[in-house]
């Protein structure tokens, strides 16, 4: 089997004595969009933060293109090609939109092609292009989410991790965010999408895993998107 783009093997994340994620195996091939859903406290954010090196990996391994990145610093992991759109967006409110975007370039491996990448994210999110000189804090919630995604894309990542990008957004804005993600995926970026909105995630992603209590419970395909019983069971399991 060739190396997966991103692979988790026996991942365990602990906060003190509490295990937030247990024995998690996950394999994502190049160009896939994989969903990860589950109730509050299931360990979704912890999984992404462990991949990113923000919280320590207690056990197991994280591999990028077959190479272990376990234990590396977040900045090293970002530079290796993984970008995170964190839960709550974490826009720099006191910096301008343009500065936020410039920060996104910190992890770029090549300085070439910045202009083309900028045009691409402006194409995805025209509202961002129109507010470059505004403070991050002046943007609406939806615009901030777009900015967070745009910022992550400017690192030109191989893998994009998103933590609940639809949180707190109006339905039409959610649609536009998901449309943007499909476009990003079409451009060849591998995506791991953490969400609470089960249905739209299951129907958008190639595969969606259900996480509960730190363990993988179920794997769903787009065909399951309208199977409400199955989705409900996923949450209650």
């Amino acid at each position, binding site marked *: 089997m060739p190396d997966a783009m991103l692979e988790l093997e026996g991942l365990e994340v602990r906060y003190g004595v509490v295990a937030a994620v247990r024995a998690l195996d996950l394999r994502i091939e190049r160009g896939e969009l994989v969903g990860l859903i589950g109730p509050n406290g299931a360990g979704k954010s912890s999984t992404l933060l462990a991949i990113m090196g*923000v919280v320590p990996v207690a056990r197991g391994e994280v591999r990028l293109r077959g190479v272990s990145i376990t234990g590396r610093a977040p900045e090293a992991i*970002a530079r290796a090609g993984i970008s995170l759109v964190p839960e709550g967006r974490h826009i720099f409110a006191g*910096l301008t939109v343009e500065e936020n975007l410039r*920060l996104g370039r910190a992890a770029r491996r090549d300085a070439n092609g910045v202009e083309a990448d900028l045009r691409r994210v402006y194409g995805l999110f025209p509202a961002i292009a129109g507010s470059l000189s505004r403070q991050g804090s002046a943007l609406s919630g939806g615009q901030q989410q777009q900015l967070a995604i745009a910022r992550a894309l400017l*690192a030109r990542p191989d893998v994009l991790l998103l933590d609940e990008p639809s949180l707190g957004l109006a339905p039409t804005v959610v649609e536009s965010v998901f449309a943007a993600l499909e476009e990003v995926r079409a451009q060849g970026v591998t995506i791991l999408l953490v969400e609470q909105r089960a249905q739209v995630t299951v129907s958008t992603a190639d595969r969606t895993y259900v996480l509960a209590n730190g363990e993988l419970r179920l794997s769903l395909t787009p065909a399951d998107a309208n199977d409400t019983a199955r989705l409900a069971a996923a949450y209650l399991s």
Partner: protein
Amino acid sequence: MSTLQALVDAVALGSIYALVAVGIGLVFGVLRLINFAYGELITAGAYTLWVLRSLPAVVAILACFAVVVSLSLLLERVAFRPLRKATPATMLIATFAVSYLLQSIYLLVFGSLGNSVSTLAGLQQAVDLGGLRIRWITIVSLACGSLLLIGTAILLGRTSIGLHMRAAATDFQTARVLGVRANRVIAFAFLVSGVLAASVSVLFTVQNSLVTPDLGVPITIFALVGVVVGGLDRLWTATLGGFAIGFAYSLLGDKLSGEARVYLPSLVFGLVIVVLLLRPGGLFAGQPRSVERV
């Protein structure tokens, strides 16, 4: 001395303290660490000037910058970096330890009596500007202080490392997730704060030529008082606070008779207490901000 003249002197001392405030504030911004050993960097620079007193001033000053910046980077590397994950209290105590260690070394090497630096003693001379007798050092302090502050502002506002520092100062974790290198940003903060400390060494020893092992202590404490009054969370208000404390100190010192001067520090601290009672977040405080570190 005329009031105008006293004002000019006060502005000059204010700009020196503003430099110290920025030096402390830059490191605080990225590490959430009040570096009490900052004054000992200034002292190291002053002793360097004394050791090299027989060499041309340019050489002594360049060496002063080299020594202070190296020491600043060294402290970051050997004392503070290993403690970065420690509690804030541990780190704070570490800076006290470093401060005392350096003072003891100065005491052992140079003794307690003090050494007189005269590197730029010529700057003590005054020029007559329309009836005002202004010493050169006042003009030089003002000019250097402004240039360094503007330089720091440009560095922070216009360069990529400056942007990374500002991002790290507001949300270090997110900055790192975006690829900002923690070690590089922190080392850079220590580098710039070292440059500022070296500048203060040069400017300060012209005004107060006697270098003692504890030269840096009151400078740090006064600047810190200013920084706290200004509000630690924003660099430019901290700078204003530093300036204000230097300004107030100089002005009050001028107004008080020789004997009353003994009470000057108490007077300044009294003022500070009043300010903090009225405005607990500092003179220029905005919204309180959460404290986070790497």
